[in-house]
């Protein structure tokens, strides 16, 4: 798997299949990027479950915060990591254990070893991307603020 460029259909497939996203490193602070992403994805119909040991037991955007992935009582489709690269291997191991199907690392975060491990366990992996920005790109919304989406299409229906 080439992690330097992903096809639009690969990313669109993941965002279409997943409904429940565990967001590791979710912040309770409304002006943090993770809060923006969580709020946006909720608006698109995803259930986003925050994971943050410092906030365990509290609520963020109406969802209970858990200390770790293994504490989440419902099945999780995708694990979205708002953590630095060094923290990824441990999250990856837990993501495999809880049966997640996708391991997603945020913009600026890459960990090739963790990616290989997750792929060996059958998970799909995305690195150095933001699901909010990808959703906006594939749905066309990102173009509303003049961002180059890299998509040419004469079709009426967007990819998402």
């Amino acid at each position, binding site marked *: 798997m080439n992690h330097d460029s992903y096809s639009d259909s690969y990313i669109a497939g993941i965002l279409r299949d997943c409904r429940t996203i565990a967001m590791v490193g979710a912040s309770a602070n409304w*002006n943090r990027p993770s809060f923006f992403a969580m709020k946006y994805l909720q608006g698109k119909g995803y259930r986003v479950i925050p994971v943050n040991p410092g906030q365990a037991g509290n609520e963020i955007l109406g969802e209970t915060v858990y200390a770790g992935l293994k504490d989440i009582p419902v099945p999780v489709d995708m694990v979205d990591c708002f953590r630095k690269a060094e923290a990824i291997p441990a999250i990856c191991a837990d993501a495999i254990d809880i049966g997640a199907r996708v391991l997603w690392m945020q913009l600026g975060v890459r960990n090739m070893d963790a990616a290989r491990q997750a792929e060996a366990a059958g998970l799909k992996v995305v690195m150095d991307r933001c699901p909010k920005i990808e959703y906006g790109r594939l749905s*066309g919304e990102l*173009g*509303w*603020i*003049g*961002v*180059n989406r890299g998509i040419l299409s004469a079709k009426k229906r*967007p990819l998402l």
Partner: protein
Amino acid sequence: MTEKKPDFATLAVHAGSSPDPVTGARVTPIYQTTSYVFDDADHAAQLFNLQTFGNIYTRLTNPTTAVLEERIATLEGGRAGVACASGHAAQLIAFHALMEEGDEFIASTRLYGGSITQFGQTFAKMGWKVIWADPDDPENFRRAMTDRVKAVFIEGLANPGGVVTDIEAIADIAHEHHVPLIVDNTLATPYLCNPLQWGADIVIHSATKFIGGHGNSMGGIIIDGGRFDWSADDRYPTLSAPNPSYHGLRFHETFGDFGFAMACRALGLRDLGPALSPFNAFLILTGSETLPLRMEKHCANALKVAEFLRQDERVAWVSYAGLTDSPYYGLAQKYLPRGAGSIFTFGLKGGYEAGTELVARVNLFSHLANIGDVRSLIIHPASTTHRQLSEEQQIAAGAGPDVIRLSIGIEGADDLIADLDQAMG
């Protein structure tokens, strides 16, 4: 699987403009509206917090304008675009995101005269100080560096034409000092040159010129190259520090590689106000679809006219970078392999008198102060745009008494040559 990058001509027609998802309208509709309804209070709050994508008010975003922004960003190979009411507005908004009061920037001496005035006089009133550097020796930019310098600004192919600036050399110097290079790419257009490929960080256009191309709409655009690290230190607080007007949001951290573009929009357009009209965006967008075809013809015509003038005995000199004996021919080969543009200057042996007479006698050339139109244009700067300057100042600005500037259009080259021939008397 690596996909082949689409041809420029394909991007010029398609980038940014899929059919309208609701009506199926194939051509981008003109969204002639000031404002947009919110779904509910929470949606409104999210929009105002920049947490979700969507429209609030046309001073910030507009769906017609957004297509133009995405298209030009794509043609330049950039991350995002921000359209403004004019090229000058684009320059103001870009610097507003970079500069604090007391900051400095280095600008090339070879610029459009209006930019020289904007930087030297109006920006000075805001406490932004310009330091001038002659780009013929890129080392001048290194010599001009100070620790308050926040940006370097050049025109790649410079107005009034014939001069090509060494973009890559100046980009390297800017980056050694950890400041971004801004290139005004108006005269070259993205078809002839992509400054981001040569190391520029931000590209600015007066879309009034070739991109719109038909002399009917003012417009400007800023392209964020997406590569500059605004958060490496604290020199760009507008981009890296918590913003009080968005409750502590940091633009670069939150929007990543389009953080600069978002700051231009959410701070510059919001607070200074020079939004592009949706109707102008539509006209410029329509123009952009034929940019490659027009530029081919503009350049081919310009070369023919320049070659005609060079061999004519009434002509003293011709400054066109596409001529093999131009001192800028080598740089033009490097940065403008598809053509050296269509704006250039020449002088008549008869000097000032002969120049004003020529302008009076041409029939197809329009005597006006613009460039980059399908129509051919002519101006004698010393008797018009630079009239108030001393002769010495005129010469320094490339507008000496004998200088005539042409902007060659897409008419038949032979007709343009015949018109100049009869007008030179």
